């Protein structure tokens, strides 16, 4: 696809810097895309891709740096201005009004009217032409959007952008919820748009698809440019190397622990939101990491084990007890504990105190008849706060006012207080400071040494490699492979997570 290389530059960004408080999301990042070019924007979670495209769309303003569109300065104050200048974003969560019809959604905000009364006839023809151009003439204009498939909704959004005369189209993980055929059709659409001179910024974790569809790539790591070039000139391995970078490994305090008998065994477990059944064993004194992209089936597996999602098929064996239909209360009775990835929404009762949060899942020691002793509970909470070094004024402080790291340690304290034998930890270190992270790793090692079993979901490969005994990789709902942690490397984990091949 060398033809587009000679086209003029459509969008250029220079020395873009963006800080959020003390953290630097982007540092002097350059980015440019030519007319009719498909450029992949790559990087690990948190590398700064989202921030960069938000700046392009106008949702965020850069602290420093200049942007130009078609040679003219471009500094949108909001997404609306961006759209007027021809920059449209197809979001991961689709931006449609579910009750409105296809036509109504496409024309929303720029309805053709006379004296306030809608005039639809001419415009319907144009929309039909657009849908035909996108090779989706089967989409009915009068269907409410909520009755469409995810793929069709995406086409509606793209139609809206085309009717907007978009010159730059940003697609954020457009295929993450698409089936194979829909993905193929979307790529056809992308090629057609490209031929029309539309530039497409394409964000995706699925590297093989990226290789298929993009002309060029740019890689971000820790908010900096680390590489860019024509797609044809790079191999998958080189790109993965760029994304991962060099990492340190001594961050992870390892406590010696020995594996015992099987503690938790999944036999063809299939939960409501899992696309394929999973079989996996967890031993006493073992930490098993679950790697993969967001939505690949890791969280879904944990939720099915714990009974938060209905189990459709399969069996869960907890230390000899066979469970067909898991329920959270039942799993807690059987010694399981789950730490949710959604700390604020699900994991903690934010407005409540530390002591309420820590003791919530096991009140029995403080019960006399049906009264709870606040004093005894506060005492227990205090002990766990000390053990986990939770920084707070006291057990009565609302969890809301704690830092992210201390909140997460509170969530862990609840599992410890509950004295769970099997800990299901979903992204326990996401968004917390390095010190708290390291304390959580240390506790995981200590718990394993005590003979407990841990399933550890994480999107951050170095911590999986540093902490786990074995690592299982998920790809698009399927458990691809389980290997001892020593047999994995950063690159192979990335490759298995993004291609499904180990």
């Amino acid at each position: 696809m060398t033809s587009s290389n000679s086209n003029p530059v459509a969008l250029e960004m220079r020395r873009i810097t963006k800080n959020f408080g003390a953290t630097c999301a982007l540092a002097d990042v350059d980015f440019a895309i030519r007319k009719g070019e498909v450029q992949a924007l790559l990087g690990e979670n948190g590398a700064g891709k989202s921030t960069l495209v938000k700046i392009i769309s106008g949702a965020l303003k850069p602290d420093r740096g200049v942007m130009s569109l078609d040679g003219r300065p471009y500094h949108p104050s909001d997404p609306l201005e961006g759209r007027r200048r021809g920059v449209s974003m197809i979001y991961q969560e689709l931006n449609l009004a579910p009750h409105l019809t296809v036509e109504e959604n496409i024309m929303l905000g720029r309805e053709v009217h006379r004296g306030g009364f809608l005039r639809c006839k001419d415009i319907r023809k144009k929309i039909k032409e657009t849908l035909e151009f996108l090779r989706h003439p089967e989409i009915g204009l009068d269907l409410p959007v909520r009755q469409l498939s995810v793929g069709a909704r995406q086409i509606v959004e793209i139609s809206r952008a085309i009717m907007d005369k978009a010159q730059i189209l940003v697609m954020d993980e457009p295929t993450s919820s698409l089936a194979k055929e829909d993905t193929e059709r979307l790529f056809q659409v992308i090629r057609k748009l490209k031929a029309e001179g539309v530039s497409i910024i394409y964000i995706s974790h699925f590297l093989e698809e990226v290789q298929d569809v993009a002309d060029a790539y740019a890689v971000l790591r820790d908010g900096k440019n680390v590489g860019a070039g024509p797609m044809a000139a790079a191999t998958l391995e080189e790109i993965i190397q760029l994304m991962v970078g060099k990492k340190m490994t001594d961050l992870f305090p390892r406590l010696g622990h020995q594996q015992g008998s099987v503690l938790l065994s999944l036999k063809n477990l299939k939960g409501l939101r899992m696309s394929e059944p999973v079989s996996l064993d967890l031993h006493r004194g073992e930490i098993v990491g679950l790697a993969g992209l967001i939505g690949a089936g890791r969280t879904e597996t944990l939720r099915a084990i714990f009974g938060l999602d209905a189990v459709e098929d399969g069996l869960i064996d907890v230390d000899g007890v066979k469970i067909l239909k898991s329920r959270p209360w039942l799993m807690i009775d059987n010694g399981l504990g789950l730490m949710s990835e959604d700390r604020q929404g699900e994991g903690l009762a934010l407005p409540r105190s530390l002591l309420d949060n820590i003791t919530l899942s096991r009140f029995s020691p403080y019960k006399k008849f049906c009264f709870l002793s606040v004093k005894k509970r506060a005492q227990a909470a205090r002990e766990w706060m000390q053990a986990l070094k939770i920084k707070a004024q006291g057990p009565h402080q609302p969890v809301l006012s704690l830092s992210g790291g201390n909140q997460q340690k509170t969530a862990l304290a609840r599992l410890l207080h509950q004295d769970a034998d099997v800990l299901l930890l979903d992204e326990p270190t996401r968004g917390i400071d390095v010190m708290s992270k390291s304390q959580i790793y240390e506790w995981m090692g200590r718990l394993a040494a005590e003979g407990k079993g841990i399933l550890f979901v994480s999107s951050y490969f170095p911590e999986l490699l540093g902490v786990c005994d074995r690592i299982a990789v998920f790809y698009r709902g399927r458990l691809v492979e389980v290997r001892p942690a020593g047999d994995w490397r950063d690159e192979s984990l990335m490759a298995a997570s993004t291609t499904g091949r180990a």
Partner: protein
Amino acid sequence: MKKKTKLQALFNLLAPFLGLILVLVIFSMIPDVQSRFLRIANLKSVATQSVIVALGALGMTLIIISGGIDLSAASNIALSSVIAAYAINAGLPPLLGILLGVLTGGLVGFTNGALITELRLVPFIITLGMMGIARGLAKWIANNQKIDAPLSWVNELMAKSPRPSWLLLAPGVWLMIIFAVAMAVLLRYTVFGRHVFAIGSNEATARLCGVRTKRAKIVIYTLAGLFCGLSGVMEFSRLTVGDPTVAVGLELDIIAAVVIGGGSLSGGEGSILGSMIGVFIMAFLRNGCTMMGWPNYIQEIIIGVIIVAAVSLDQIRHRRNA
């Protein structure tokens, strides 16, 4: 295949009327009631009784489609009726009194809309507050009594047998019909109407697409307020006095009518036709129950059951379509 879809289309067209037809059929089959229920005079009286709730429901439909709610509707009706009576009692010409009543309603609605958009509080809270404020103001202005006003042509608006007999229905009923048609057209054929649906369906998207959501919301609540004002004038016309304690709890009847008619409290759904049918289902139920000599509490239980049944049927229909 084609026949089936035609049948389906016919069914979909009639579906909203089914509940109403069912109520009518049931009551006209009961021997005791049969003879009186479907008589023209009775139909006229039900229509007249429906005017006050129906006018309120026109505005409430708009609000509920946009994802909001108005708990102050009934208080607003009371306040407007008191203002109209006060003005006419003070010697203003009746037309001016009516106008003042309607504008009062509009002002309350505008205040609701402005507070909701400026303070960024949920409509439930703002209108809950306004419910108390408007009711209190009405009582204050009326000095906690009924305001007598001299009889005038205003009281003819809700007369069961209208003065020029060729009108057939009370002028209030005609106003209700005209405004219902106007609102249905507004919702269906104007840019504004489409924006109302868009805001209720996904407000963030509407804003992103360039819909001026704040302005639209203020217009929605102001329009709804104006309808409450008109409804208040009708209340005054019916009672011939301005009574600050009238219509207590009526906001729930109005909301129920919209919800029975297919309005979704989470926004994005609803129709004027549906809401009007909701109004008439409740009116005919009341009427029929009264004719049966059933006590009030039976009516309340039946209407409660109807609300739950209607909405759950609607849900089932939606789930099948989705």
